[in-house]
């Protein structure tokens, strides 16, 4: 991405020309007796940075390697085994088109993963104090402050702005706090584990390009492979003969067949969202569908014209990154950074602890897991459980490790997405739950994870609810786990509704096709 460095207006440095090259600035800093530190090094969110701040990814890469791997493997197999035949018998355009699509897919995937999705930097202490002062002037003086909201009128509609306790500011409209990344993201769509990053204002167009080009690629490969096999099977030789001659084609066929439905479905869904200028988050929550009352609450951000909506979402001006990762820290803030450094060090330690505990629990679970049928599904479910566990805080992990690996008790674990104003790095905010229970046999091991579904958040929930406004991707059935697919986007209804009735883990596994309808129904059922 093109890099612009916005230097802080430092009163002492005003006489120096502002767009200085980093080395010069570093020299200036060193002269003051401080080594220059870039802002990404003290970034408070749970992101990781590479290439000296140029590349930003979420804390966990999710299944990005899997996504990349599947795409690469399928395309390489296609080029190696199918293209020569098709080149000879059909046309040279086939590998050319395949190549172009593949390049588009990989580039847009990498851009989606490595671009800042629109993270809002946290409020400075002075700002936070100013906002607090304003709230206290008008608000109550109860011990536990009520949920802080501010109402604004957008396009003749009342929109509530919520206060983010972690970032200490009122969130702009359409902004949501991602608990996985611990950042407020503008125009938050969802956190996508397949790309290993949030999808927000800045990278939504890359994400859309990715899924659309992936749909084309999948359909294209599927069609070409089918043609290839059909051509080989000509002359009465039969399909089996063709498959024997080209076994790789069978692999590609299987992968493409299972992925094409979900990817096409996802592309269709996002095309609908783009055309109506909605985010996945808003669509899931039904913010503008008038679910709450009879009044017709339309989307205040829509231009009521499909073409204008599409253009503004996909072709609008590219907003800049607000977090200025590669900027240098001003010298005065070194004392503040010491505090954040300690926090970061603690965070890193806790992550290491989490990993160690995860591994030990995994080993334990594998040992205790009853050797019944469906080992693969069992392992997959364990992996899913593990992934969810790894997003928990150390405390929860310790608690669960001290209990038996497959607790059959009815005691619910508390998901401590609690006091959102704690910038406690161990603050878990579990939102990913392995809802996939493809095999009833694997249920005992999943009960641990499954119980997360039935968690209820204890009151007050308003601040917590803010953290659950992102959708979860759903891994489709593990029997089809070998397919590459972009996941479905559903929210965890249990979090969005602070009701007691435990939702069954069975809410989770909905099929790839038409999952959006299932999602809506399941969501509606809870309301």
């Amino acid at each position, binding site marked *: 991405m093109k890099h612009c460095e916005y230097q802080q207006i430092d009163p002492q440095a005003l006489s120096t020309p502002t767009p200085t090259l980093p080395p010069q600035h570093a020299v200036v800093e060193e002269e003051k007796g401080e080594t220059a530190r870039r802002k990404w090094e003290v970034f408070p969110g749970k992101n990781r940075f590479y290439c000296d701040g140029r590349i930003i990814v979420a804390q966990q890469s999710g299944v990005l390697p899997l996504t990349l791997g599947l795409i690469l493997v399928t395309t390489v197999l296609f080029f190696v085994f199918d293209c020569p035949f098709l080149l000879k018998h059909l046309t040279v355009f086939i590998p050319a088109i395949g190549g172009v699509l593949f390049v588009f897919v990989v580039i847009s995937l990498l*851009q989606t993963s490595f671009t800042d999705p629109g993270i809002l930097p946290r409020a400075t202490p002075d700002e936070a104090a*100013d906002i607090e002062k304003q709230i206290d002037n008008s608000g109550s003086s109860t011990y536990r402050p009520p949920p802080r909201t501010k109402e604004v009128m957008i396009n003749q509609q009342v929109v509530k702005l919520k206060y983010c306790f972690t970032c200490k500011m009122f969130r702009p409209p359409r902004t949501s706090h991602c608990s996985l990344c611990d950042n407020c993201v503008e125009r938050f769509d969802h956190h996508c584990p397949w790309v290993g990053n949030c999808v927000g204002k800045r990278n939504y167009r890359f994400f859309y390009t990715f899924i659309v080009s992936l749909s084309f690629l999948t359909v294209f490969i599927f069609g070409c492979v089918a043609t290839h096999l059909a051509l080989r099977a000509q002359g009465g030789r039969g399909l089996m003969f063709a498959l024997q001659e080209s076994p790789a084609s069978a692999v590609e066929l299987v992968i493409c067949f299972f992925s094409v439905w979900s990817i096409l479905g996802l592309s269709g869904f996002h095309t609908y969202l783009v055309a109506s200028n909605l985010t996945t988050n808003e669509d899931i929550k039904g913010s503008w569908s008038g679910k709450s009352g009879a009044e017709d609450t339309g989307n205040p951000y829509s231009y009521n014209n499909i073409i204008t909506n599409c253009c503004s979402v996909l072709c609008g*001006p590219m907003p800049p990154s607000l977090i200025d990762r590669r900027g240098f820290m001003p010298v005065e803030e070194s004392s503040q950074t010491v505090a954040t450094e300690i926090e970061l060090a603690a965070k890193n330690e806790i992550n290491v602890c989490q990993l160690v505990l995860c591994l030990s629990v995994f080993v334990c679970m594998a040992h205790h897991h009853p050797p019944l049928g469906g080992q693969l599904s069992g392992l997959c479910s364990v992996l899913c459980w593990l992934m969810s566990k790894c997003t928990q805080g150390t405390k929860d992990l310790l608690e669960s490790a001290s209990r038996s690996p497959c607790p059959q008790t009815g005691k619910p674990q508390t998901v401590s997405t609690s006091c959102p104003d704690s910038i406690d790095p161990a603050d878990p905010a579990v939102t990913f739950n392995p809802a996939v229970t493809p095999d009833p046999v694997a249920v005992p091991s999943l009960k641990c994870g499954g119980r997360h579904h039935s968690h209820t958040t204890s009151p007050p929930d308003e601040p917590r609810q803010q953290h659950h406004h992102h959708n979860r991707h759903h891994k489709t059935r593990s029997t089809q786990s070998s397919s590459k697919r972009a996941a479905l986007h559903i929210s965890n209804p249990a979090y969005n509704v602070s009701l007691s009735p435990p939702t069954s883990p069975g809410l989770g596994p909905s099929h790839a096709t038409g999952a959006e309808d299932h999602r809506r129904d399941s969501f509606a059922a809870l309301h």
Partner: protein
Amino acid sequence: MAETHNMQDLHHQAAVASKVYVQRDYNSGTICRFQTKFPSELESRVDRQQFEETMQTLNNLYAEAEKIGGKSYLEGCLACMTAYTIFLCMETHYEKVLKKIARFIKEQNEKIYAPLGLLLTDPIERGLRVVEITIFEDRSIGSGR
């Protein structure tokens, strides 16, 4: 530059008395716009008209950056066709306008606000959330005047 030297003197001699924050105005949606309401803390410091004019110009500049029109569509379509790789080589329209805004704020500070003991912070440094106005105590007599 004489003006910046005066500003430096001002900042060396003055201490930060308080900070005033002008919040975003979301009535027109998610576009970047700041409230033009005159903060009460600046009553004694700066002319209301002048301040509102500065804010209005700032809002107009941001509107220009975010304008959806022929040029931005062209940029967007071109970017899409090159799989967004042109963002690696080309500066976007938004970034160009942001540089313009930075120059505007610097100029306003030098010409108008520094002599009054105020400093406007570029909103991009606060994540486009607020316009931070730092009010300096005026200890020295002859600074910047």
